[in-house]
């Protein structure tokens, strides 16, 4: 229930109110289409204008954003966009009702803001969680406003419509959970079982993936299709390797062996430098960061570390080559039995003619031989 009806207008209305340009919004929709090319209702259109038309009619979803054991990198990734000023746009598109980093309030005002936001949008808000949740020693390693992280999470999640774990930390524990894991850091879905949890791993993940997920939910009321690990298929169903711009080098056996060697400088495949692209599901190879082309690890010549994958990131050494267990070959690869040059029709024709003519001539000639000689009466 809303206190003020205009507090939750449609996105179109909010855009008009805030003075953000329509062109910037359409640009945003275009970028959403790149981030989510398949599998989302909101981007299943031919043009950004069409996407804008659908998204614009959605009600600005209320978003409550919790920070757990985090570095705030996922927030930064959302904010560190500039073309257009996405930070501003975000606040037109979603209603960020609680966010410890960017909100103006602090102290008891902040605690009150959270309570209010939860009450106003009870059962309707999207909870975004950033950072892992320590579970060891009853979660004593994280206390916010006097509560353990676990308790805070459970409380806020209970009144949420859906939970999005942004970043690897919230998805499966991230850096804090790496070897020894002194705090018993874990992801959201190990704790929250009674609400739909969408994992958006990455360190950090791509901000457009978050936006697309939230908007899909706001527009359709449904969570996008998820894989077995709770990751949206539209972004995480593909390996970096399968969409990597350097894949041709991999296929041709051209590898950089050392940083700065001639292969590296020519932009060759980074597999031998430990690139985890072949075993990492993430959208980075198609949707780069910071609105700068090739602004992503492989693009700048650093091997992918597999930051989205629990089994890889912060576990397998960065420069150790990936252990590819199910190689998915490119479509164009020499088969076991290649097809070689076929049989010429002309040649077959000539052979047939000659053979037929010879046998025919022989038979005809033999008929002529029938007269003039025959079986002798005596042996």
């Amino acid at each position, binding site marked *: 229930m809303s206190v003020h009806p205009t507090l939750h207008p449609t996105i179109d209305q909010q855009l008009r109110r805030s003075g953000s340009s329509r062109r910037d919004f359409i640009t945003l929709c275009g970028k959403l289409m790149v981030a989510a090319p398949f599998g989302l209702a909101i981007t299943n259109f031919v043009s950004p204008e069409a996407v804008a038309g659908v998204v614009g009619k959605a009600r600005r979803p209320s978003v409550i954003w919790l920070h757990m054991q985090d570095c705030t990198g996922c927030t930064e990734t959302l904010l560190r966009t500039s073309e257009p000023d996405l930070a501003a746009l975000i606040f037109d598109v979603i209603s960020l009702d609680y966010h410890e980093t960017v909100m103006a309030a602090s102290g008891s005002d902040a605690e009150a803001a959270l309570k209010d936001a939860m009450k106003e949008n009870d059962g309707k808000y999207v909870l975004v969680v950033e950072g892992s949740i320590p579970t060891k020693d009853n979660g004593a390693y994280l206390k916010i406003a006097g509560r353990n992280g676990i308790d805070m999470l459970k409380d806020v999640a209970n009144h949420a419509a859906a939970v999005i774990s942004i970043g690897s930390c919230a998805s499966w524990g991230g850096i804090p959970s790496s070897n020894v894991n002194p705090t018993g850091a874990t992801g959201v879905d190990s704790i929250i079982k009674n609400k739909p949890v969408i994992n958006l791993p990455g360190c950090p993940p791509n901000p457009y993936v978050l936006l697309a997920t939230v908007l899909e939910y706001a527009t359709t009321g449904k969570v996008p299709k998820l894989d077995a690990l709770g990751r949206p298929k539209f972004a995480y169903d593909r390996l970096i390797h399968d969409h990597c711009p350097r894949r041709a080098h*991999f*296929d*041709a*056996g*051209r*590898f950089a062996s050392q940083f700065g060697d001639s292969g590296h400088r020519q932009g060759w*495949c980074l*597999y*031998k430098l430990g690139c985890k692209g*072949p075993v990492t599901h993430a959208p980075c190879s198609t949707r780069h960061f910071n609105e700068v082309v090739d602004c992503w690890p492989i693009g700048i010549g650093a091997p992918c570390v597999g930051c989205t994958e629990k089994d890889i990131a912060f576990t397998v050494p960065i420069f150790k*080559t990936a*252990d*590819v*267990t*199910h*190689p*998915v*070959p490119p479509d*164009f*690869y*020499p*088969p*076991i*039995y*290649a097809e070689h040059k076929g049989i010429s029709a002309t040649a077959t024709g000539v052979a047939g003619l000659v053979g037929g003519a010879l046998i025919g001539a022989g038979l005809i000639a033999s008929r002529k031989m029938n007269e003039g000689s025959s079986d002798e009466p005596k*042996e």
Partner: protein
Amino acid sequence: MNTDRRSFFKSIAAAAAVTAIPTAAIARAKKTAPPDAVGLLYDATLCIGCKACVVACKDANNMPPDTSGYGRGLYDAPDSLNQYTKNVIQLYKDGGETSYAKKQCMHCIDPACVGACMLGALQKGKFGVVSYDVSKCVGCRYCETVCPFNVPKFEWAKTAPKIVKCELCKHRLADGKEPACTEVCPRKAVIFGRYTDLLDEAHRRLKASPNKYVQKVYGEHELGGTQVLYLSHVDFEKIGFRFQQPESVPHLQQSVTHGVYKGFAGPVALYALLGAVVFRNRGKSEKES
């Protein structure tokens, strides 16, 4: 006439006795790997199809690029072993089941090509490597015909054509280095070593991961044994190994030929017999005429 027919059968029987006694043939002893035998072990479960080995082989052997086929005149993209390619990676794909397969000379323990070559251009030499000496080659392509793995390839495009095949980088072995393909493989999917060590390692892997592999080391027994061994997670037929029988290719032909010729004794005996008969008949017919 009856006499002619009878005579014919007699002559055939005589010929049969002299020319073909396969069942009574001297059994040819089974060949074993030489004591200094080296080889390769290729583990298809480790191969990622990067083709670094294809590139390295071309480099190490000064091979020209192969731009026919997939290369469409622009790219060096061999689709099988050929006159420009001594080593190739192929792909088996059937629905979800995939495997890469590295193909090169198998360096058989009892090679068909060595048995075929008239002047011994193909020989099993140092370390058991099947090597090629072009000075003894007349380009008859009999070796190509008989190889069960279709390995030796002919330079069809050249006016002075040679046979082209992997020789296990014998020029690098001579320098104490390993073959180019094993040196460059980023996953160590193909490794080089003493044949006996590789066989042991292959069996160790089979035992350690029984569910990962087809429980067979291809090349241990097949076609008399090969010094290049294969491990795979799919059936070996699927990755292009058509034949599984333990008998080496030369065994049948050489058993028969040796059994019949018995060195030179067979032909000499036959010649003596023929000469004697002709001589006797000549005498007879001269008397009659």
